[in-house]
């Protein structure tokens, strides 16, 4: 758009990104001859490619820290993910974006097809809803931490609660695998195994894992069946109850 003074169209057209065309012709033409540049070329150095784009896009609030990002440090280029000269850039559409990310992130290609997942395949949640791949936040999160990123949709988990479950306040991914799992609620592991990674206690917290053989209300048997430990410890993210100590401090109500 020539009406926008910042765009290549208003600043020199093709030469803004591709170099001096006249010099290219004068030098006889051909790939790279006369300083002509193809930012999508495999044979152009990553930093050089990215500099072309950053000339205009470095001021974008999400790209200020691009050079400190994991992608930049590992020589990922803008054209590794973005299509230029196209009306539809796959990575900017939530429905097609994951396919672009899966070119390198193979584990996630399988995880998003597991039985318990976010609505990523439907394009309702995109990789970029949680990750700012142009930034340098921990784990490339869009917000300053994992928990703050998850609060964008799960704000009820922030509390603070009267009774806070410590891992919940630290990092949701201690217990959850957000890309997809085979366990309900995106848990990394099936209760009681997951809970037993932190909790040892005489009585039912150290129970043997296994489905029950019949109906029971015994806490010592129900750590695996149904919601497992969460059958009773149902407010595991935090509780605002002031009922007696056997219940609230243990996230039962």
């Amino acid at each position, binding site marked *: 758009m020539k*009406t*926008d003074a910042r765009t290549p169209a208003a600043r020199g057209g093709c030469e803004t990104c591709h170099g001096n065309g006249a010099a290219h012709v004068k030098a006889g033409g051909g790939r790279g001859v006369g300083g002509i540049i193809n930012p999508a070329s*495999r044979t152009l*150095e990553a930093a050089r490619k990215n500099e072309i784009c950053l000339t205009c896009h*470095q001021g974008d609030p999400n790209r*200020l*820290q691009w*050079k*400190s990002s994991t992608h930049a*440090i*590992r*020589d990922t280029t803008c054209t590794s993910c973005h299509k230029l000269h196209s009306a539809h850039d796959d990575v900017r559409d939530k429905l097609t974006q994951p396919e672009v990310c899966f070119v390198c992130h*193979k584990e996630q*290609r*399988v995880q998003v097809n*597991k*039985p318990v997942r976010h*609505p990523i395949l439907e394009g309702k949640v995109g990789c970029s809803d949680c990750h700012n791949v142009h930034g340098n936040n921990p784990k490339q999160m869009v917000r*300053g931490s994992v928990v703050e990123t998850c609060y*964008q*949709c799960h704000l*009820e988990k*922030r509390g*603070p*609660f*009267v*009774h*806070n479950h*410590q891992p919940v306040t630290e990092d949701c991914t201690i217990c959850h695998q957000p890309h997809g799992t085979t366990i309900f609620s995106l848990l990394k592991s099936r209760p009681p*195994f997951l809970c*037993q*990674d*932190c909790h*040892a*206690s*005489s009585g039912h917290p*150290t129970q043997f*894992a*296994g*489905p*029950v*053989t019949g*109906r*029971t209300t015994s806490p*010592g*048997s129900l750590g695996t069946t*149904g919601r497992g430990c969460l059958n009773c410890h*149902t*407010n595991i*993210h935090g509780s*605002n*109850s*002031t*009922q*007696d*100590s056997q219940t*609230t*401090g243990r996230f*039962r*109500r």
Partner: protein
Amino acid sequence: MSKKSRHFFRMTPLAVALLAAHGPVLAQSTEGSLSIGAGNWSNDRPQTGVYDGMRDSGGYGLLDLDVVRRDEATGTWLGLKGRYLGLDIREIKADWLRQGNIGASLDYNRIVRETPFVFNTGLVGIGTTTQLVPTPSITPGTGADVELKTTRERLTGKFYKNLMAGLDFNASYRHETKKGNRNWGRGGAPEFVAEPIDSTIEIGEAALTFSRGALQLTGGFYGTWYKTDNTLVTTSLTNGASPFYLSLPLDNQSWEGYLNGGYNFTPTTRGTFKASYSRATQNEHLPTADIPGLASPLAPENLNGRLDTTVLEAALNSRPMRELSIAATLRYRDFDDKTPVQQYVIAGAGAPVYNTPFSYTNHVGKLDATYRLPMAYSALAGVEYNGQNRSVPTVGTLWVPFRAEVDETTYRLGLSKSMSDTVNGSVRWEYASRDGDSYTLPNNPANPLQDNINPLNISDRTRNKWRALVDWSPTDKLSLQFGFSDAKDDYNGPNSYGLQKGKAQNYTVDGSYRLTSTWQFNAWYSYDLNKANEATQNSGAGTPTKFNELKETDNSYGAGVKGLLFDKLKVGLNVEQFKTKNKYEQNIVGATLPATQVPTPDVNNRLTRIKLNADYPVQKTAEVRLSVIHEKWKTDDWTWMMFPASGPTPWAYGTANDGTTVTSDSNYNSTFVGVRYVYKF
């Protein structure tokens, strides 16, 4: 059928209005497409249709819309994009932008989640704050079938204005309502109730961004507001006995002010910074305080919860010589839970209970260097230190060992090859070591076992990780990609129990082959392994240690072909299969299995999906698209089953009460056939 084509049309008033408003314009001066059609799923899809609005068998209409009108003279874009407009998960976005000057957008989006389960229950009051569990128990399977569902309805508005050369203003606001019910529990007993989640999330942000020459700055405000419709659910048995009061998350809100910036000191040296301060509060009336006997007489009626977070960060990137690049970052984050500690719970069963604020301070230092070698090879080395100081809860509210300090140092080495038309790739190795200070122990004389575990997130740990990715294009027609990653964790510490080892592996191969200018094949395979070894005490103190090995193995593949038949008919066929196998091995030395339980069986899941599309042009600007999808889902997941001697049967909640069972279709096939007319402007 492509993902993009899985959209359906129902002639809703909205669709009619859109066609009326934009139809003539589209044909004259806009770019884009409009597709209208209908399709049918042959069977219910409780597992695969959780999110796509087509869980049930039957017919669906489809409408997709993607229109952009561009005015070169004024530099104005006008866009309208609708997806899934015939479904419950419809979304539509309108965009208006006078590029470089002013713009706005409005986005409406629905996210629906339908659980794959059927709850057969006698519970009374689902969706309300008073729920009654049947007593005596219903005969399992004789209750009413309930399918739980949650719906998010999201409206997002954005505004942009260029105020002067280099100075932009951006604002956004999101309003999201959540409605529905989730699987929950009574807390006092393993009995089924449903959590009413009706609530609202609002998020607003306003920022000024300045960018001129070497300097870029952005500063703004970010606010969040959570408002719940319900604060407490009262449950009891149908005869009024055993009232249990289930607390819900209460309203909370936050604001954040931030300033981020960057400055290019030289063409090869750049510095950046971030500074932010936020405050989140929760000061709602605690609903159980109104119920006689449910709060300490000393307890305040409000939590006065306050979370203050400060982030400071500075980073420097430089390329002091052509061969060498350096990136250094220092980051400080202080998360301070300033909620006052007070006694909230009556000293009844057990000791008095206080609220439990947790605070953290992180110091992170990172240095990465890349050295460019001849022949387009690069060597990378890096080190990262992450130090964390935590507040330790007072003994008496401590249920597991805790540490005030946890430090982790990571070292990285890598080698990459780039800038080649045939072979590019990288190999990286990472080693991380985590430890900390001595544990503060619960020191519960009645339960010394609590002291004897190294909790997962603060345990001493070493991690060895390898990762390699190679792209190989031996010919113009053939390209291959090989991936490999292997991570091993070793956990240790002064205590006996907890995670011992972890392992994650991934092997992948991807390939594509271009047979002709119109025919292309692709295929991929992925193998994933995740393993954890744990040590736990079996059934309390005095019995032997139990060793668990949890292993998940995934084998997945996909293959596809696309091409052109008879010069006109575009066809595509894709096959995908995702298989997972979970094994749970438990070994107890010198002890027998509890009679009430059976050894944890394996769990196998298999999803197969076959898609076929065919696009046939019927006019210069229109085509007819046929889509066929076949899905097969199979699982032997026993999570909601019990195993009496007579054979597996759905587990039922409770004994004297309740009787709810949870079932799902564990083996089904479903086929979709859809036809649509696609008009391109």
